[in-house]
C-alpha cells in the first residue's frame, strides 16, 4: 500500500506537518488491554456504584422496566452502525422508524408535528424558547420556578449568551402548582413564551388550559415541558400548548448516570418550519413506492449555515428507536396500564405521609420526613439498602425539610412499606 502511495514508510504519511506541530513523545496511556481486561475493569468500577439497592429517586430520571425487545432491536448492526440517513435509498429502516417516532410523539403529546428527537429534555428547553422568540419576534421568557432546576440552568446558560432574558415566576406554596396570579402580573407584550412543566418538578399536574389562555391573551406562546413520559399514558396531554418539549428517558432508556437520553420537541403545524433539528418526511421513490427521507433541511445548519434555526446536527436516533420499540411493545393499552400502576404505587407510598403540597400528583411527590431531616431519613434508608428521595434543599432552600420521592411499577410493596416506616 505504501508503494501505491509512493511512500517509503508510515512516517512519510505525516512528514509534511510542520516540525513544531509534531508530538515528540508517546501518549501517556497504558498499553492496549484485552477484551477480558476491559470487561473486568468496568465491572470493578460498576461494583463501586450502588448495586442491589431499591431506589425512590425520580427528579427527571426514572426507573422503569426495559422490555428485552428494546435492546434486541437497537443492538442490530444495521441500526447501531448506520449514520444519519442522508442516503435515503439505503437508510429506509432508520427513516421509517423515525417517521413512526415522530407520529407517536404527536399522538402522545397532542401536537401536530414532532422532530426526529433532541439531545435530551434539558437542552430541548432553550431550543423551544429560541423557537418561540423566532415566531413572536420577542426576547423575554417567563419560566416557572417548579421547572426541573437543571433544565432551568441549561436555559439560563443559553439565554445569557444569546442576550435573551429569562424571568422566573413562582409556585403556589399550598398546591405546588404554578402561581397563576404571579404569572399574570409578569405577562406583557415583550414575552415570547411562558415555560412550565407538567407534571412539574414536584410531580404535580398543572392546569395547562388556564396557563395557555393567559399566555395567548398577551400574544405569547406556551411551552410545556415534561420529564416523566409515562405520565402521558394517563394524563391529558398539553393540547393547548404551542410547543411541547420533554424527555423520553422513561421509555426503556437506562438511567446510565444521566445519559444518553432522548428529548422531543413537538408543535403545531403552522410552526413546522421553525422547528430545530432533523425531520423525516414521506415521499415516493422513482417506482412510485412509499419512501421516507430527511426533509425541510433548508432550516438546518449544513444548508443555511449562520441562518439556521439551530446548530443541531446530531439527533438521538438510536435512543429514539429504543423509545419507539418501547412504545410499540406497550402500545395503547399497555402504556395506560403502566401509568396506572405508577399512579397506584406512588399514591400508596404517599398515603399518610406529610405532604406540603395539595396538587394532584402522578408518580412522584414532595414529602416531609417526621422527626428527621431528609438527609437523616436517607441515611436510615441506606442501611436498609434503599436509596431514598432527593433532598430538595439543594434546589429549593424553602423546601430544605422535604424529599422528592418517586415510585414506579418497579417499586416493590415491601420496599415502599420500609420507606414509609422511616418517613412516618
Amino acid at each position, binding site marked *: 500500500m505504501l508503494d501505491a502511495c509512493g511512500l517509503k514508510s508510515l512516517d512519510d504519511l505525516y512528514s509534511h506537518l510542520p516540525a513544531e*506541530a509534531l508530538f515528540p513523545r508517546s501518549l501517556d496511556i497504558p498499553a492496549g488491554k484485552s477484551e477480558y481486561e476491559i470487561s473486568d475493569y468496568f465491572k470493578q468500577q460498576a461494583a463501586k456504584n450502588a448495586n442491589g439497592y431499591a431506589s425512590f429517586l425520580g427528579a427527571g430520571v426514572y426507573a422503569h422496566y426495559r422490555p428485552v425487545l428494546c435492546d434486541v432491536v437497537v443492538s442490530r448492526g444495521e441500526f447501531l452502525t448506520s449514520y444519519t440517513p442522508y442516503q435515503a435509498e*439505503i437508510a429506509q429502516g432508520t427513516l421509517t422508524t423515525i417517521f413512526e417516532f415522530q407520529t407517536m410523539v404527536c399522538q402522545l403529546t397532542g401536537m401536530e408535528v414532532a422532530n426526529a428527537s433532541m439531545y435530551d429534555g*434539558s437542552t430541548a428547553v432553550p431550543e423551544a424558547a429560541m423557537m418561540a422568540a423566532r415566531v413572536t419576534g420577542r426576547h423575554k421568557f417567563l419560566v416557572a420556578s417548579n421547572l426541573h432546576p437543571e433544565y432551568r440552568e441549561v436555559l439560563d*446558560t443559553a439565554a445569557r449568551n444569546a442576550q435573551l432574558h429569562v424571568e422566573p415566576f413562582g409556585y403556589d406554596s399550598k398546591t405546588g402548582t404554578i402561581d397563576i396570579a404571579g404569572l399574570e402580573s409578569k405577562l406583557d407584550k415583550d414575552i415570547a413564551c411562558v415555560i412550565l412543566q407538567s407534571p412539574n418538578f414536584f410531580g404535580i399536574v398543572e392546569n395547562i388550559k388556564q396557563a395557555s389562555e393567559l399566555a395567548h391573551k398577551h400574544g405569547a406562546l406556551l411551552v410545556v415541558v415534561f420529564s416523566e413520559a409515562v405520565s402521558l399514558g394517563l394524563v391529558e396531554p398539553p393540547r393547548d400548548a404551542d410547543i411541547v418539549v420533554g424527555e423520553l428517558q422513561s421509555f426503556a432508556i437506562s*438511567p*446510565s448516570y444521566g445519559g444518553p437520553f432522548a428529548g422531543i420537541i413537538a408543535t403545531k403545524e403552522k410552526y413546522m418550519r421553525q422547528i430545530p433539528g432533523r425531520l423525516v418526511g414521506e415521499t415516493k421513490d422513482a417506482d412510485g413506492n412509499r*419512501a421516507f427521507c430527511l426533509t*425541510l433541511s433548508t432550516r438546518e445548519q449544513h444548508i443555511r449555515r449562520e441562518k439556521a434555526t439551530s446548530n443541531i446536527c446530531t439527533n438521538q436516533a438510536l435512543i429514539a428507536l429504543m423509545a419507539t420499540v418501547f412504545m410499540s411493545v406497550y402500545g395503547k393499552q399497555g402504556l395506560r396500564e403502566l401509568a396506572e400502576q405508577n399512579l397506584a404505587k406512588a399514591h400508596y407510598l404517599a398515603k399518610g405521609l406529610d405532604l406540603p403540597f395539595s396538587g394532584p400528583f402522578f408518580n412522584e411527590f414532595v414529602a416531609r420526613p417526621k422527626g428527621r431531616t431528609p438527609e437523616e431519613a436517607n441515611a436510615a434508608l441506606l442501611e436498609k439498602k434503599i436509596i431514598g428521595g432527593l433532598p430538595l434543599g439543594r434546589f429549593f432552600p424553602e423546601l430544605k425539610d422535604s424529599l422528592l420521592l418517586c415510585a414506579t411499577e418497579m417499586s416493590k410493596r415491601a420496599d415502599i412499606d420500609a420507606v414509609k416506616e422511616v418517613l412516618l
Partner: protein
Amino acid sequence: MPKTLGKIRPHLTQNESLLFELSHPGKTGYQLPELDVPAVDAAEALGGENVRTEIEHFPEVSEVEVIRHFTRLSTWNYGIDLGLFPLGSCTMKYNPRINEAVARIEGLAWAHPYQPESLSQGAMEIAAVLEQYLGEIFGMDAVTLQPAAGAHGEYTGIMLVRAYLESQGNPRKKVLVPDSAHGTNPATAIIAGYEVATLKSNEQGMIDPAVLEAAVDDTVAAMMITNPNTVGVFEENIVKIAGILHAKGAQVYMDGANLNALVGVARPGDFGIDVLHSNLHKTFSTPHGGGGPGAGAVGVKSHLEPFLPTPRLRQANGQWTWDYNCPQSIGRVRAYYGNFGVLVRALAYIMAHGGPGLRNATLDALLNANYLRAKLAPYFQIAYNAPSMHECVFEDTRQESKGVRTGDIAKRLIDYGFHPYTVSFPMIVHGALMIEPTETESKQELDAFCESLIAIANEIDTDPEMVKHAPYMTRTSRVDEVTAARKPIVRWKP
C-alpha cells in the same frame, strides 16, 4: 441487469407496513406484574379533566409483530457492520461490541445521576480517567464531558471564549470561520451571540495567513478552525495562524471532527489551539446509531478552565466529588453530567488501543486515505494537490462534462454495495466527493471500493444516462426529496 455487481447480489427483503397500519384493537405485546398495592381511581387522584380517554391511534400490536417489524426495517439499512462507510468528516469506523457490553453492566447502566456520591464512585472514576486520557490526547489542560454532541461541544467552546474575553473586559463581536468549515461552525457562533465573518481559503484549500492577518482586529473573539480541514489537509501554517490570532487577543477554537488524523501524531494543544471539541462518536468509535447519540468532549488550556460548565469533577481524600462552586463557570450546558453511556464506550476504546495502539490506528487511517487517493487519482480530479491526511477529496469536473454529478456517482456506488462518500461538501470544492475510509478497512475492502468507483467512471464514459438514474439494485429506487420538502408529510394520519 447483471445479478451480481461489485460486492452485492440482490436478495429477498420483506415489505412492511407502518406500525399504525399493522395495529388491531385489543392486540398487546406487554406484560406487567400484578399490582401489589391497591389500585387508584385516576379521575379521583388527578381530577377528571386531567385524565385522557385514550392515546388516539397509538399502535396495538403483538410481541412477534414488534420484533418482525423492526427486524424487517433493519434489513433496509446499510451500516458499518455490512461494509465500508466512507463518509468524509464522519469517521465511520468499526464500533467494537465490547463497548456495548460494558455500557450495559448493571451498576453503570442503572446508576441514577442523583444517587449519593459515595455510591457513584465507579461512574465518577470512569469520567475522571476519560478526562485525563482525552487531555493527554488533545494536549489540553482540562476537559469537560458535559456536551451531548459535536455541535453542542462547539457551542460550549464558543461560550467559554466569550466568558474568558468578558473576564478580560470585552467579549468582542466576531467569530472568523473559513469558507471550508462545517455548517455547524457558523450556526454555533450565531447562537452564542457572535457575528460570523467568513474567510476565503487559498488555492490549496488552506487558510491564507495574509488574508487572516488582514481580517483580524480587536473585534475578533475567535477563529473556528478545523484541522485537518474539511478537504483533509493539515493547515501547514497552523502555528503561524494561532500566533496571528493570539497577537490580536483572539482565541483559537478547533473543530475536532477530524481528530482521527492526529491522535498520537500531533496534539492541538501543542500547535496553538486554546479550545477544541472532539466527537467521541467519530474518533473514539462510539456508534452513530443512525444519527446519535454522540458526545462532544471539550478540551481547554488552563486560562479557560475556570469557565468550564458546572459541575466539575474533583478528588478529595481519595473520593470523587462534584464541585458546584465554580463562580466563573458559563453554567450548565446539559442536565446531569453528559452522555455517560457514550463516555463509557469511548474509554473502553481508548483502553483497548492504549497509547501506542491509538497512534497505529491514526497511521492506518492516513495510509488508507492516501491509498484511495493514489488509486482513484487517474479517474477523478483531486481537489487540491496538498498531501491528504485521513480523507481525500475529489471534484466531479471530469464527470460533469458527461452530465453526471457527484450525487449521481454516489447513488450508483450504492448499486455496487457501498455506502457513498460525503456528497457536495465542502462547498468550496466543485461537486465534492469527500472520502474517509478510516483505519478499520482492509486492503481488500479498499480495492473493491476503488474497483467500483473506477467501473462507475467507465460507465459514465459509455452510458451516463444510466448512472444518472441509479440506484437500481436497492429495494427503494431514487427517493423524491423535492416533493417531500414541497409537500411535507411528517407524520402518519389515519
